[in-house]
């Protein structure tokens, strides 16, 4: 890898972002704690019986994951915006979309992947149907990158704002609807013994599309909000 080439820039960015997360390991745990607490609130609110919790387990885990991801989205560009390195990315000679894709990848690795690893535990808390133990992490593995990619476009639009939390939720959640429907739909279909492959394939198709288009849209949005 020649210094100054685009691949070197991406590698440096990946290394820097991962190092930053590692230096503040405690912060990386907050989405996990948040999702666990949200899931733990449901038995308290609607009763602790297996027959009450099992039908809603998938939905609750998906919504908890989605909300945890939403809270974590805010950190995607905030630090970089405040110390000015985001503007350096925008003016750098390398393709902005590629650099942003690296940032989104690190963000997904550090916020969503731990949640997927935690999902069997969350499933046990809600007496998840044993037949879904394998399918739920797989469905989350397809949905969470989509959530990160779509969310990144909206975060890029709100990047300069002081208090963007609630507004971000308003922008992002309507866009998450199809992802949620297909992700949770696949698990619910499997729970009822119906074929569940089609929604998973739709998710995979959406993920391929978003992998290509979302970084480009994210770059365009960032150019608007930092201009």
């Amino acid at each position, binding site marked *: 890898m020649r210094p100054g080439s685009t691949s070197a820039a991406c590698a440096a960015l990946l290394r820097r972002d991962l190092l930053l997360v590692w230096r503040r390991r405690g912060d990386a745990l907050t989405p996990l704690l948040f999702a666990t607490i949200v899931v733990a609130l449901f038995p308290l609110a609607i009763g602790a019986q297996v027959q009450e919790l099992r039908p809603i387990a998938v939905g609750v885990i998906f919504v908890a994951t989605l909300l945890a991801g939403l809270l974590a989205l805010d950190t995607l560009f905030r630090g970089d915006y405040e110390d000015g390195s985001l503007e350096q990315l925008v003016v750098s000679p390398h393709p902005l979309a590629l650099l942003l894709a690296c940032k989104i990848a690190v963000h997904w690795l550090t916020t969503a992947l731990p949640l997927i690893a935690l999902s069997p535990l969350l499933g046990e808390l809600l007496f998840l149907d044993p037949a879904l133990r394998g399918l739920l992490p797989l469905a989350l593995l397809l949905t969470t990158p989509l959530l990160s990619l779509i969310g990144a476009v909206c975060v890029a639009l*709100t990047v300069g704002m002081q208090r963007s939390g609630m507004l971000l939720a*308003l922008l992002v959640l309507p866009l998450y609807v199809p992802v949620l429907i297909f992700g949770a739909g696949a698990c619910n279909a499997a729970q009822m013994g119906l074929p569940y492959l089609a929604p998973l394939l739709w998710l995979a198709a959406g993920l391929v599309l978003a992998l290509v288009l979302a970084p480009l849209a994210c770059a365009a949005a960032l150019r*608007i909000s930092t201009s």
Partner: protein
Amino acid sequence: MNTLTYWFHKLGSPPTFHRIATRVEPWCLALALALGAIGLYGGFVLAPRDYQQGDAYRIIFVHVPCAWMGLFAYAFMAVNAFIALVWRIKLNEVLAMASAPVGAAFTFVTLVTGSLWGKPMWGTWWTWDARLTSELFLLFLYFGVIGLHNAIEDRRQAARAASFLALVGVVNLPIVHFSVNWWNTLHQGSTVRLFGPSKIDASMLWPLLLMALATHIWFFASVLARARAGLIELDAGKDWVRKLAQDDAS
């Protein structure tokens, strides 16, 4: 430069647009009110009762035109947003942002009248049916665009960011519609079709189309009014606005 491009450029300049809009707007409003009054009279009084739904079906004369307008306003906003982002024309930024609240209002009316219609027909105010759900998320998309536009201080940057969000919504809307359709469907099918015969009697069709025309004209009147206010706000320091204010004061 030929006449057409000349007029196009001229219309894009805020003072000219403001002058024309000021002249056109009252006519639009009056025409919309007149057509709407005829349409409502035709729908509520002249049109025959439905053999199955009785008089309750008459809310279709408000519900369906508003539902069309909710989508039409989004399309209008998206086209203007696209022009605003690509060619950076100030007028189109203003027009896109002016159509968002109007479209949101039409969508809201659609949801309310639909819920009023659903109570006697389906026995419930709300069901998680595909069309209802996608209409609800259309409303949320409108709110997102309006919220983003209000949250950014620099007006032109706010308009550009909100325009971008509107375009993202265009990509998303068909996907939302498709996914909720796959998820759940109860709503009755389309009654009026652009191609092929409509499943509605002519005595019921003409008030419906008249109402659709009235809501379209009303939409343009409303957007023109909002765009005029938006242009004056945006160009507050410019000479033409000062002249306008002085003419108004004297």
